[in-house]
């Protein structure tokens, strides 16, 4: 009897323990490396100040030479799609674990490691340029890490007045006189979070990017590397708009949300006919 009680006790304890642990039965898991290459055409971008001799320059369709001194954008809502259409969601509702600021001035930020991806053969990647509306609230309480990263003094990816994150921040110079170029984007939508029909005002600058992988990324045993090119020639000379910079649109003062959308459609696609914007797959290495 005494023994029986002991066993019962032990069993109960074990059950209690078991019910505490969260199941981790994911199949063979592995990393996927996303490498971001920011370019003008096929030339990697080198940042530089107003009179920099080393900065990469490019000339827009409208004939304006320009270069950047700062180049940042936010990637979130990453999904990997298998050949059969199954989507693996990568912390899509957790900015701390599933969103990142790509910053051309920080080499480490250009390589984003996604961990514990279920084994399989992936043929497509989807991600968001920016942050979807329902998470775009500067909620430090929910996502302290991403909040800190985006809000850091050397990053400044926040629009405090709009209580949302900056999705892109591009600083630079254009034209023979090196006029200032300052292009920022972000959403200003108001309404019930995530319910598009309730949006009563504002601009949604979040863009969904869909890229087919040139070679399948095979996860399981190895860590595939997916190299994604962001061709910033598209900023001014994109599929949606050919933009000539001037006093009316080169700096935030007057670009307002009206002009902002043109830049956003160029680099992030218009959301309907163009879901690539400036992005393309350079290579997949297994």
């Amino acid at each position: 009897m005494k023994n029986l009680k002991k066993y019962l006790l032990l069993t109960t304890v074990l059950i209690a323990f078991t019910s505490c642990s969260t199941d981790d039965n994911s199949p063979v898991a592995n990393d996927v490396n996303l490498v971001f290459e920011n370019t003008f055409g096929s030339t990697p971008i080198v940042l530089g100040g107003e009179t920099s001799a080393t900065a990469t320059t490019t000339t827009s369709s409208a004939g304006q030479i320009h270069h950047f001194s700062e180049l940042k954008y936010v990637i979130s809502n990453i999904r990997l799609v298998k050949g059969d259409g199954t989507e693996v969601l990568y912390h899509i509702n957790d900015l701390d674990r599933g969103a990142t600021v790509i910053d051309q001035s920080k080499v480490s930020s250009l390589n984003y490691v996604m961990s514990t991806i279920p084994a399989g053969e992936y043929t497509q990647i989807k991600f968001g340029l920016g942050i979807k509306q329902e998470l775009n609230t500067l909620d430090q309480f929910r996502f302290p890490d991403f909040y800190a990263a985006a809000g850091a003094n050397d990053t400044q990816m926040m629009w405090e007045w709009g209580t949302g994150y900056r999705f892109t921040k591009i600083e630079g110079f254009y034209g023979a006189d090196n006029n200032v170029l300052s292009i920022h984007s972000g959403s200003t939508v108001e309404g019930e979070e995530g319910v598009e029909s309730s949006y009563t005002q504002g601009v949604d600058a979040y863009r969904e990017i869909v890229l087919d992988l040139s070679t399948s990324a095979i996860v399981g045993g190895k860590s595939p590397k997916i190299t994604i090119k962001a061709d910033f020639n598209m900023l001014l000379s994109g599929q949606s708009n050919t933009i000539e910079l001037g006093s009316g649109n080169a700096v935030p003062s007057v670009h307002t949300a009206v002009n902002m959308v043109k830049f956003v459609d160029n680099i992030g696609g218009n959301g309907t006919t163009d879901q690539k914007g400036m992005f393309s797959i350079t290579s997949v290495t297994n």
Partner: protein
Amino acid sequence: MMKKSFGFLFIVLILASCSSEDYESISYDNPDLVLDIPIDFPALNNAVHSNRPTKYGVELGDRLFHEKKFSTNNTISCATCHAQENAFADNNSQAIGIEGRIGLRNVPPIQNLAFMKFYNWDGSKLQLESQTIVPIITHEEMDSSILEVIEKLQGDAVYKDLFQKAFGDSEITPDRIYKSIAQYEYTLISANSKYDRVKKQQGETFTAIESQGYQVFQQKCASCHSTPLFTDQSFRNIGFPLNPDSNEAGRARVTGVSSDYMRFRVPSLRNVAETAPYGSFGQFATLDAVLDYMSDSVLDAPNLDPIFKENGNKINLTAEEKFQLIAFMKTLSDDQFLGR
């Protein structure tokens, strides 16, 4: 026997550690406040219905509104810029935050906000609960963060007690902070000016000049400064001198609509005599200066308000009419509201 008890206790502990269930909160008496809604005021903002002011919610909000710990260096509170004697605005051209940092715009008064559909001069926010965070985190205002604020408030027995009374337990969360401050602001209703008392016909009357001013007001001002709030809550470009700050675009910054460029929300005229200077970034030192500018000639723009455009970019006012108008506008000051 002893052993058995330990075993049992052990199990109980484990089970307890598994559950994340809220413990039964101590019952508390925190009645809804009855808002004294003035006759003919517009409908309440919908957000009020899901965040009804309560006795302790408002008491907590009031305390938080005056709490300097909201600023990163503990020097300013909401009330620093939103001072009661100025209808919860101040007398600076543009807001002044910590370390004397200058903000983009003129401080808006906080009055009758429960009845407003838009907040801020560009209407960027549609409910107060989501506005509160903006000054806390803005570099030119308090330059803090909500977790920094919560950390500073934690451990303060007065707050523990107030959060407990207002929300049922003493946990300090961002949402509770936003809600209680909004609740407090909902109670800031100004509707007891001389104008209101004259309207109620309880014996008080306008002087001759005030009465003439009211006539002029109805003819030349009331199409925009309409309703008992003295604003139709529309956004208009009325050709005021432009803010050179590179972040200013008026309502277009929010909506992305070109025609909203440099449009601002029509300000309420309640307590207007107490909120100088005027204009989105305090362009005008006095009411006289505003009226002189409007009757002289405003800046032209493609989206200049039709009322100006169709009238030679101005509103015709004689010196006498201006004098009368200002006398009338002074009757919109609410001494009780201003704490006089």
